[in-house]
C-alpha cells in the first residue's frame, strides 16, 4: 500500500504539470511564432519571376529571384523555378527593402514600417528595454511581419534637456566623469550606436555642454561605437563635426550651410540624416502621399495628421533643402530618415515622403534611392541589407513604374517581402470602442463620479518626472449648484508642465463617431487652459485645443474633429489642464457633456 504512494503521486504530478503547461495562458509572441516557423522555414523557398531590379542607379532587365529560408540564393533570367512555389512579379520593379535611418520605434512602428516597404529601422532613441529582443528578431530569418530594429537606445542629454519630455526613462549626464559609466551602461543594454543631444544655442532648453559631448564621442569611439548628434543650428553642427562626430541626425534649418562648414564636413567624413520630413512639419509644410488611406494604422493616421502646434523659430525648410544639396554635391553622404512618429510624420509613409523631399532638394532619384538603401547599409554595417544580390536578405518591395524617373513611384507598392515572405499590408483592425450617444458626462450635482461611463481623476506632469500638482474637489455655488473645483499648481521640473483634471471612459475606449462636440461651462483664474483628447493609439503629445477661462461662467464648445488625429471611434477620454506657465490656477467646471 505504502509502496504505491510515491509512484502514483509522482505520476499524477507529472501529468498535472504537463497539462498545466498546456492550460496556462499563452501569447502569440515572437518565441511562439519562431518555434512554429522553424518548421515552416525548411520549405520557405520561393521563386519570383518576371521582376526588374532597381538598384545602383539602373532599372535592370526582367529577371527572376530564388529565395530560400529568407535569403536570396539566386538572381538571374536563366534561373528556373524547378518545382518551387512561383510568385508572378508581373514586370514590377523591385527595390531593396527600405531603411529609415531616423525613427523612434514604439507602438505599431515596426508593423507599420514593414507594411510600407521599410524593412529596417535605425532608431535614434527609444526605451532600451526592447533592444535585446530587437537583436534576436533581426537575426531571425523566419517569416515575420515586422521591421528589423537597430537602435541607439537611451540618448545622451542633460537634466531637463531635449529627450526628457517624453516620459521615457533617461539617465541624464551632468559631468564629464559620468560619461564612461554612462557609455558602459548603454553597451550593456545593447545600444548599436550612441546618440547625443547638443543644442547649447537654444535658450528654451538645457543641453550637454561641448566638453561632455566631446567626452561622449571619444568614449564611444574608444569602445568601437559610432556617435551621432542631434543639433539645431549650423554652429552646433560645426562644433560636433570639429569634435569628431560620425554623423548628424538632422540638418539645421536656421541658415544655409556656408562653404567652410561644407568643406569641414567633407574633410571629417561625416554623414547627414537630414530628416526633411520633420523639418517640413515643424515649418508647417504638408508633404502629402499617394498611399491608400485605408492602409494607415490608427497610429499612422494620428501622427501624420498631428502638428507641432507651436511655431518653433529656426526651422526653414528652404534653408534645409539648400544645405542638403550643398553637402550632397560636396560628397557628404546623405541618408534618408524620417524622424517618425513626430507630429506630421508616420512610420513607413514618411520615408517615402523623405525621398520625395530629398529629390526636391536637388539630389538625383538614383542617389535618393541609395540614401534609403545601400548607403545606410554600408555606414551602419547592416550586412545583407540595402542591396539585392546573392546571399542578401530577401527583404524587398515590388512597385509599379520606374522610380529613377519619378521618385513618388516608390509609393505604388504592389507587395512587400520580408524574409522572403509576402507581408500582409492591410492593417489589423483595432477593436472600436462601444458607441456612445450624446450624454452628460457630469453635472456634479450628485458628486464627482456618478457617471456610469466616465471617471474623474487628477493628471499632472508627475507621471513624466515633473513636480506639478492638482487636486479635485466639489464646490457649491451660492444658488446651490454643485461644480467641480480644480486647483492646479504648475511647478518647474518638467520642460512642459501640466496639471489638471482628466475624465476617462471607465470600461475602455468609446466610439464617439456620433458626437459633434465636447461642451462644458467653466470659470476660474483668468487665462489660457488646454483640453487634451486621448484615443486608442495616442502616443506622445495628445491632440490639444486651448480655451480661455474668465472669472465669469462661460460655455466652451470644442469640436471633436478639431482634435487633430483623434480616433473618434476609439476615444479614451479628455483632460482639462493648466496652460504652460508656472504658477497656481483654479478652475470650476460644470455640466460637461458630449453633444450631437
Amino acid at each position, binding site marked *: 500500500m*505504502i*509502496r*504505491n*504512494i*510515491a*509512484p502514483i*503521486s*509522482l505520476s499524477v*504530478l507529472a501529468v*498535472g*504539470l504537463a497539462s*498545466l*503547461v*498546456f492550460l*496556462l*495562458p*499563452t*501569447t*502569440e*509572441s515572437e*518565441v*511562439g511564432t519562431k*518555434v512554429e516557423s522553424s518548421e515552416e522555414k525548411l520549405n520557405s523557398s520561393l521563386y519570383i519571376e518576371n521582376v526588374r531590379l532597381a538598384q545602383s542607379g539602373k532599372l535592370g532587365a526582367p529577371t527572376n529571384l530564388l529565395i530560400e529560408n529568407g535569403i536570396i540564393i539566386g538572381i538571374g533570367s536563366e534561373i528556373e523555378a524547378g518545382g518551387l512555389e512561383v510568385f508572378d512579379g508581373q514586370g514590377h520593379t523591385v527595390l531593396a527593402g527600405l531603411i529609415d535611418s531616423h525613427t523612434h520605434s514604439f507602438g505599431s512602428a515596426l508593423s507599420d514600417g514593414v507594411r510600407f516597404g521599410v524593412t529596417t529601422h535605425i532608431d535614434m532613441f527609444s526605451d532600451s*528595454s526592447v*533592444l*535585446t*529582443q530587437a537583436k534576436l528578431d533581426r537575426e531571425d530569418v523566419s517569416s515575420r511581419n515586422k521591421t528589423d530594429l537597430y537602435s541607439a537606445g537611451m540618448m545622451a542629454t542633460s537634466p531637463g534637456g531635449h529627450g526628457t519630455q517624453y516620459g521615457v526613462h533617461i539617465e541624464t549626464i551632468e559631468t564629464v566623469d559620468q560619461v564612461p559609466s554612462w557609455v558602459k551602461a548603454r553597451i*550593456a*543594454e*545593447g545600444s548599436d550606436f550612441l546618440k547625443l543631444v547638443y543644442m547649447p544655442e537654444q535658450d528654451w532648453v538645457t543641453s550637454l555642454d561641448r566638453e561632455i559631448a566631446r567626452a561622449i564621442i571619444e568614449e564611444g569611439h574608444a569602445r568601437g561605437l559610432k556617435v551621432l548628434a542631434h543639433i539645431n543650428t549650423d554652429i552646433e553642427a560645426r562644433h560636433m563635426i570639429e569634435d569628431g562626430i560620425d554623423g548628424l541626425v538632422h540638418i539645421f534649418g536656421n541658415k544655409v550651410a556656408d562653404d567652410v562648414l561644407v568643406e569641414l564636413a567633407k574633410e571629417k567624413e561625416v554623414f547627414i540624416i537630414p530628416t526633411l520630413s520633420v523639418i517640413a512639419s515643424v515649418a508647417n509644410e504638408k508633404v502629402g502621399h499617394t498611399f491608400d488611406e485605408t492602409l494607415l494604422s490608427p497610429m499612422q493616421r494620428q501622427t501624420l495628421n498631428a502638428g507641432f502646434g507651436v511655431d518653433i523659430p529656426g526651422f526653414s525648410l528652404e534653408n534645409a533643402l539648400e544645405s542638403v544639396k550643398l553637402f550632397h554635391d560636396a560628397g557628404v553622404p546623405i541618408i534618408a530618415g524620417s524622424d517618425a512618429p513626430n507630429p506630421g510624420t508616420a512610420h513607413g509613409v514618411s520615408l517615402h515622403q523623405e525621398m520625395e523631399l530629398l529629390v526636391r532638394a536637388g539630389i538625383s532619384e538614383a542617389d535618393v534611392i541609395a540614401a534609403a538603401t545601400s548607403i545606410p547599409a554600408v555606414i551602419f554595417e547592416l550586412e545583407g541589407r540595402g542591396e539585392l544580390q546573392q546571399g542578401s536578405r530577401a527583404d524587398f518591395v515590388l512597385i509599379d513604374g520606374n522610380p529613377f524617373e519619378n521618385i513618388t513611384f516608390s509609393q505604388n507598392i504592389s507587395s512587400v517581402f520580408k524574409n522572403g515572405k509576402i507581408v500582409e499590408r492591410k492593417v489589423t483592425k483595432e477593436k472600436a470602442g462601444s458607441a456612445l450617444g450624446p450624454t452628460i458626462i457630469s453635472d456634479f450635482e450628485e458628486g464627482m463620479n456618478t457617471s456610469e461611463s466616465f471617471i474623474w481623476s487628477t493628471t499632472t506632469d508627475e507621471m513624466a518626472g515633473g513636480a506639478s500638482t492638482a487636486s479635485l474637489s466639489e464646490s457649491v455655488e451660492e444658488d446651490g449648484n454643485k461644480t467641480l473645483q480644480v486647483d492646479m499648481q504648475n511647478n518647474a521640473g518638467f520642460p512642459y508642465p501640466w496639471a489638471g483634471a482628466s475624465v476617462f471612459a471607465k470600461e475602455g475606449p468609446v466610439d464617439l463617431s456620433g458626437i459633434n462636440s465636447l461642451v462644458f461651462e467653466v470659470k476660474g483664474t483668468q487665462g489660457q487652459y488646454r483640453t487634451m483628447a486621448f484615443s486608442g493609439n495616442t502616443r506622445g503629445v495628445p491632440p490639444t485645443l486651448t480655451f480661455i477661462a474668465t472669472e465669469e461662467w462661460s460655455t466652451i464648445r470644442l469640436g471633436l474633429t478639431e482634435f487633430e488625429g483623434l480616433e473618434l471611434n476609439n476615444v479614451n477620454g479628455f483632460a482639462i489642464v493648466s496652460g504652460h506657465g508656472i504658477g497656481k490656477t483654479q478652475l470650476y467646471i460644470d455640466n460637461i457633456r458630449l453633444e450631437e
Partner: protein
Amino acid sequence: MSMFKSLSAEAGAEILSAMRSPSYMIPTLVFPIAFYALFGLVLTQGREMTAYLLATYGVFAVMGPSIFGFGVTVAAERERGWLQLKQISPTPALGFVFGKFITTLLFSGIILALLYCTAAYGGIAMPRVVWASLLGVHLLAIFPMLLIGLSIGLLLRSNAALAVANIVFMGLAILGGLWMPVSVYPEAMQNIAKLLPSYHLAEISLAVSQAPGERNILGNLIPVVVATVLLLGLVMVSWNRQKK
C-alpha cells in the same frame, strides 16, 4: 524488483510523514504563494513585475522543500540515530535520500503549479515553450538547493541545523535577488549575489522568460554547475564521515 519495492516504500513513507507534519507543509506550500500574490500581484502595478517575480519566485518556491526538507529533517533523524540504523540495515542506505528527494520533487511540483496558476490569474500569458522551459529551470533548481539542505543536515546538530537552514534560506532568497531585483542593491551586495546559486538560477529563469535586460544563460549555468558539483563533493564527504 525488490530494490524498486524498497525504494517505493521508502519514498511513500517519506511522503506520508511530510504530509503529516503541518510545520513542514504549511510554510513550504503557503509562504511562496502568499508572498508572490502579495508582492507580485497586489502591491505592483503593471505586469512586468508580476512576470519578473514569477521567474525568481519559482526558484524561491523550490528552495523551501529542498533546504528544510533535507536540512532540518536529516539533522533530526541523524541525531536520533535513525540515519545510523539505516546505514547498517540491509536496505540501500541511499534509499533514505531517495525518499526525501521524491518528496521534495512532489512538493516543489505542487508549489510551482500553484505559483503558475497564481501568475496566470494575475494576467501573465507566455508562449507555451516559455512556460515549459521555466518549469524545467525551476525543477532543475531543486538539485543544488537539495544538496545545500543535505549538507546542513549532515554537518550540523538539529538545533543548529534549523537556525542555519533559516539563515541560508533567507540569505539565498534576499541576496540572490529572488524577492527583488539585485540591481536595486548597492554594488557590494550585487557582488555577493554573484556568488550565490540562487542568483544564477534566477537569472536563468529570467532569461528563459525573456525578462528585459541582456543575459547570458551559459554565464549563469556554469556557476550553478560548479556549485552543484562542489556541494555534491561536500555531501559525499560528510556522508562517508557519518558512516564511520
